[in-house]
């Protein structure tokens, strides 16, 4: 009895889980593996469009009573680079119609014309004409003829499923792509974005955790940047930072803090002299990192706040009795309580920042030294139209991500499980 019940339970479980699993598999897991396949192929954006045989139908009457019609099919191969083999053509006509000319490639039987056009090379074009005549000499309705669409079919190679492989993409990724700089930029962006978000998160959480009026409003407001749509926020910032008429530059110039506007998003380096030493700062990258911090510190804030609120008040009271200063209380009570959540946050934010595409894309488009790996995927795949290369960069990203995850679980995974 229990055996059949558990069997039933299993079967139910699989029916319940399967649709979701299949969907996630098809859209999330399959592409990750498909990347491996594509990254070893020499494919460009134009290759992925499957060539189609196409026909545009034009109908003209050629006799006064309308009993004779000329139908022109403008045939073409939609692809500029690939041939289509074995093109078949088919069209239907109303009753009582005969064809006055019949191409040797075609057959006319029971109101249907069927043609076998053979192979069409790339860019193939032909005007294929037939003349229709009504057997009874009656008028043929042009509209009826026009509304019937011809059916075409043909075979062509799909470069995606051939077995030509190449290592070229990976060679290009590592040798022709400024790979070291790309990697460094990505790491700067990821690391400082993550650390900044966590630091500001701790500060904000400390603030809101105190007994101040309106702290629930404050918590809501602090989350605005995180829940707002990235497009709107990024464009607002672009406007704010614009060198010509942006508010920030205008304010700074107005109050004589800077002499001339600074192109915060369009300038790769800025030289800052501190104590006589000149430092070159990656300006656009720094600005993008600040946007990143602004947008994502709320997540860190929320997690840390939740943790802070769970710390028992008695700990602080005991410290008060012992005469500990606020700084000591923070270092000896608060910090140890939040290290675990900080290490988890570091991991999550590190991975997500590492993959951040939209923010940089919308702010700078990857120009002025803000090209990171995800931006590179887009640039290679869609701007340069080299799909294979874009996939190869994606593979690099996946590999690095796996490495992070392994390191993370080795180092702090155990600690994270304790909370």
């Amino acid at each position, binding site marked *: 009895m229990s055996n059949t019940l*558990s069997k039933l339970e299993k079967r139910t479980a699989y029916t319940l889980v399967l649709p*979701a699993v299949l969907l*996630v598999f098809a859209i999330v897991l399959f592409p990750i593996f498909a990347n491996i396949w594509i990254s070893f192929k020499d494919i460009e954006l134009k290759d992925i469009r499957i060539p189609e045989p196409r026909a545009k139908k034009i109908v003209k009457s050629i006799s006064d009573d309308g009993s004779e019609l000329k139908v022109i099919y403008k045939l073409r191969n939609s692809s500029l680079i690939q041939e289509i083999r074995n093109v078949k053509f088919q069209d239907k006509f109303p009753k009582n119609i005969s064809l006055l000319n019949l191409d040797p490639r075609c057959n006319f039987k029971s109101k249907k014309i069927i043609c076998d056009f053979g192979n069409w090379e790339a860019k193939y074009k032909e005007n294929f004409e037939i003349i229709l005549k009504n057997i009874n000499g009656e008028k043929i309705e042009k509209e009826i003829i026009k509304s019937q669409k011809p059916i075409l079919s043909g075979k062509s190679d799909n470069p995606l499923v051939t077995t030509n492989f190449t290592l070229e993409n990976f060679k290009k990724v590592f040798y022709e792509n400024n790979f070291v700089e790309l990697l460094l930029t990505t790491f700067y962006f990821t690391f400082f974005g993550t650390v900044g978000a966590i630091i500001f998160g701790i500060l904000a959480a400390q603030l809101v955790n105190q007994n101040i009026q309106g702290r629930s409003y404050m918590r809501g407001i602090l989350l605005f940047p995180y*829940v707002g749509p990235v497009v709107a926020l990024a464009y607002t910032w672009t406007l704010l930072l614009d060198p010509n008429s942006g508010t920030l530059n205008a304010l700074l110039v107005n109050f004589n803090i800077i002499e001339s506007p600074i192109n915060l998003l369009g300038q790769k380096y800025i030289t800052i002299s501190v104590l006589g030493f000149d430092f070159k700062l990656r300006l656009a990258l720094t600005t993008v990192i600040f946007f990143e911090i602004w947008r994502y510190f709320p997540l860190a804030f929320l997690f840390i706040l939740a943790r802070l609120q769970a710390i028992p008040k008695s700990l602080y009271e005991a410290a008060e009795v012992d005469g500990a*200063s606020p700084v000591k209380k923070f270092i000896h009570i608060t910090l140890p309580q939040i290290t675990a959540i900080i290490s988890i946050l570091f991991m999550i934010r590190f991975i997500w920042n590492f993959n951040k*595409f939209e923010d940089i894309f919308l702010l700078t488009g990857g120009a002025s030294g803000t090209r990171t790996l995800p931006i590179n995927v887009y640039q290679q795949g869609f701007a340069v139209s080299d799909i294979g290369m874009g996939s190869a960069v994606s593979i690099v990203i996946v590999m690095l991500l796996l490495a992070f995850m392994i390191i993370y679980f080795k180092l702090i995974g155990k600690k994270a499980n304790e909370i």
Partner: protein
Amino acid sequence: MKFKSITIFLVISSFFLTCILSIWKIMSTLQGLNFTNLNITGVFFNGIILSLLFVLIGNRINHLIKVFSLSLLFSFSYFYFNETSPYWYIFGVFLIILFFTNKLKKYNTKSLTEDFISEKIIFDFITLFGIVFFAFVILFPFYIMLVTSFKTQIALLVNPLDFSLDFSKSLTELFKSYFVIFETYNFSRYILISSAVSIGTVIVTLLFAIPAAYAVARLNFFGKNFLSTSILIIYMFPAIVLVIPLYTVFSQLGLRNSIFGLLIVYTATTLPVAIYMLQGYFKSIPKEIEDAGIMDGQNWFGIILKIIIPLSLPAISSVALYVFMIAWNEFLFSLMFLDNPKSFTLSRAIQYLSGDAETPRQYLMAGSVIVTLPVLFIFIYFEKYLVSGLTSGSVKG
């Protein structure tokens, strides 16, 4: 000791006062006032004198009278020494100083001799400063977004600092950008598409996620542990590595440029987290209730429909809100998949608008306001439910 703490008190408090007065000045400048000098040192020394006076007077007079008279005095001196400014500005200064002196209430010559008083002062004022700072930094871009949508490109190019709104204009004139983006840029269509995609994603995601989450929470089957860990790992994987394969496959299947294609992708990417959140909640429902259902002869389907769903409506609705927000805000896939303006979502439409350098910025900002408002409203209205969901890791980004 006393000297040290009083110096720290004076410096820190006047620093704080300088900050809020500077922010007030900046905001007033953006209303078209012609200030060119923040006058930080002047305000700072005034602040020191003010705090010193406050501590010296101590409890000799009633707190309320003290606060009012000091604020009035300071505002007048501010008015006297500074550039000419309208009365509302001075009134704002007065209110700020009133607020500030009121915050000083707990400090007097006596309390400044307590243990760790300097650290406490620093903590107190850093807290105040932090609140002002965070509120300003966060709200300022939203403020600029909103006001820009009511201005005109020419007015902003002439004076990029004047964000004052001219309420004497008619409403149609004021909301002109909104009319334009609806009439010439077809935003009503994009709103419709975005809503359809987002609501569709919510429905489909819930349809898939509720049964799966129930199975993970309640039933025993082979591979269950593997499934629940892989949910989290899949969640970690970024959209950017999915883009190229999905693009190629969707192009060949003709799913690109279709709302349906977008719907599938959004559903699949939000499913792991929806399942994760829901199963956590389902586990908290007492099993006895279900056993009663089984006794009544319900099958699994009946149990989910008649017991689980009604009991977990709060969790389901918070997941629904999340999925809606994720789908509404999504940009990457809509950028990759849609290149026909007929099937643009709001985000993609705004990005498309910005691609034309000729597009006046107020239209861009009006579009941004339109895409931002629904999310912020949902968030403010349902904040309590959503925040608990956020900490369980629901929104990726």
